[in-house]
């Protein structure tokens, strides 16, 4: 998930001294499955593109 507006809501306090619309964030995203911050070229075996129906989340 790398929608910048959503990222700003997910990370409270980000707006105080930074922004998800700046180059320091770039096109990074938050992996909702593993709660990781990932660079745009990074991925893992559980990755699913956003326009596909997500499979049930574990646990």
């Amino acid at each position, binding site marked *: 998930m790398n929608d910048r507006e959503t990222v*700003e809501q997910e990370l*409270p306090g980000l707006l105080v*001294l930074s*922004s998800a*619309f*700046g*180059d320091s964030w770039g096109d990074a995203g938050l992996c909702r499955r593993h709660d990781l911050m990932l660079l745009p070229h990074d991925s893992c*075996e559980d990755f699913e*593109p956003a326009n596909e129906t997500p499979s049930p989340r574990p646990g």
Partner: protein
Amino acid sequence: MRYAPRLPGLGALHTQEAAVADKPKSSSNLLKTEDYWAIWLGLLVIFVAVGAFYAGGTLKDVAVTPGKWDTFDKLVAGFAKNWLGYLTVFLGFGFVFTVSMKVMGRNIKQFIPGYVIIFVSSLAIFVLASSGWAKKADLGAPLLALIIGLVFGNVIRMPAWFSTSLRTEYYIKTGIVLLGATLPLTLIVEAGPIAFLQATIVSVATWVTIYMAATKIFGLDPRFGAVLGAGGAVCGVSGSIAIGGAVRAEKDHIAIGIGVVSVWAIVMILTLSFLCKVMVKPLPASAASAAPAAAAPATAAPQNPGQSGMAATMAAARAVPAAQKKTPASQTRRWYHISPGQAGAWIGTSEYADAAGFAVVAEIAKDHGDAPIQTFTLMKVIGRDIWIGIWAFILSIISVMFWEKKRQADGKGGPPHRLHLRVVWDRFPKFVLGFFVASIVMTGIASAVPSDHVGKAKLQGTYKSKAEKLKYNANFDTYPWNRLPAGLQKKVRLDKTRRLLTAHGKISLKELRTLQGFAQTPDQRAAFKKLRYKSDWFLSELKKKAINPIKKLRSWAFVFCFLCIGLSTRFRDLLVFGFKPFWAFTIGVAINVPLGYFLTTVAFSTFWQAIG
């Protein structure tokens, strides 16, 4: 370095990623981030200011901030005089901010009312800061904006839609690009290496301290230690998130890192502002003559209008007011006194965010001129910010080679982390390019002094500087012109018919002393000071009509930023961090602040003192 995918199922991902990678880099990338928009807006302002100047006009009548007032009548008179300027600033900034928000995909129906509130509040803050009360309390617009924002932001729950207009980074980056127009390129080139050296020493020491405290003392995850360390060493919240992605930090690491850095940044704004009010003292006149090498030759060499540089003229301009400051040159300096330039450099190593640091140095600049802003920018932006991509790349290598291997061995790791040198550019703060372009453009313009510039000073008038205001009515009937050196007699002339002094070429400090040495009255001496000012094309024309308006607009951008910091800082939301990350960061602060102070005031003291 690229690792080939080894886990099943990644083939499709790489097809998708390849499709993304093959998509041509469109020009829309230049409109996608606040960094680029700060460049476009900043350069647009500079273009308009310089264009107006060369067209014979000036922005100084519309790029305004409220003036001093101590009675209601003066306040009303000020508004009557400047209302068109306030409206112009409101509409100009508002238009570009709105367009940029729309292009970046933000909700402008939320942005516009929020911007109106921020502008009107900023205007009110400027008015309050210009009042007699605020002057007595020594409170400038930057600190007032922060304090008022903090009070309102923590007492009143801001509606969610308002956050769309709380663009702290966008406003400060615009301000920094505008700042580039007031920072000579020669100063950047000369001071940049020193700033980089000092900043690197402090940054590496701070990062290692925080990382070691986080991992060895408090047993935190190395990725968490890296994120905290980047927050303290490189660039605050932006550093944390840039490194967070590079090392695959957990979302909690980022969230807590943001909280710790933000709280400490706010604490340091208030602490450093207070300390600097006590510690910062201008230099005595004799020490001010030790100007930086980039500036000194131009003041010592024979005057050639075509060769006057911005840096040389700024150094000469600083030298004269320093000698004339109300504070006597013989004032006893205490051991803890530091110069304005040293203060800016120290804050540049010891503040954790650009916006926070600018809040402090803008407050110091209110009393001491632009030197602290310049040295802070050199240290923070040139010395630290631009290297964020290098930090991200190096830490991603360390993450792959050590931390992920350990996580894989513990059964916690994911697929191999792929390294991209591209992260160095991706994370590079692009607004710094706008800063450099602004400096290059203005330095070029400042060096192109018109060869036919003639300085003119009326025999009756007022000479104003930071240190004094002199009204004079000079009579030169008995002035011994023929006793002046031949060169000076040709350069400086009296036009009795038009009651003018004229100067063909810039008058140096030495020539001023010669002219004043034969003066018979204080009014004659004041008239020569005015003539010297008028003979300097950079000071009397370019700075007055183009650069000062840019500085006014920069002040607006800064106050927007500081107000937004206050309004968006909800301590209740930030104080989510636990004992361990907070104390790991605090141990880093305990190293960072004194080390920065030592390097600024001892190791590199002479250098920063000369700029201040």
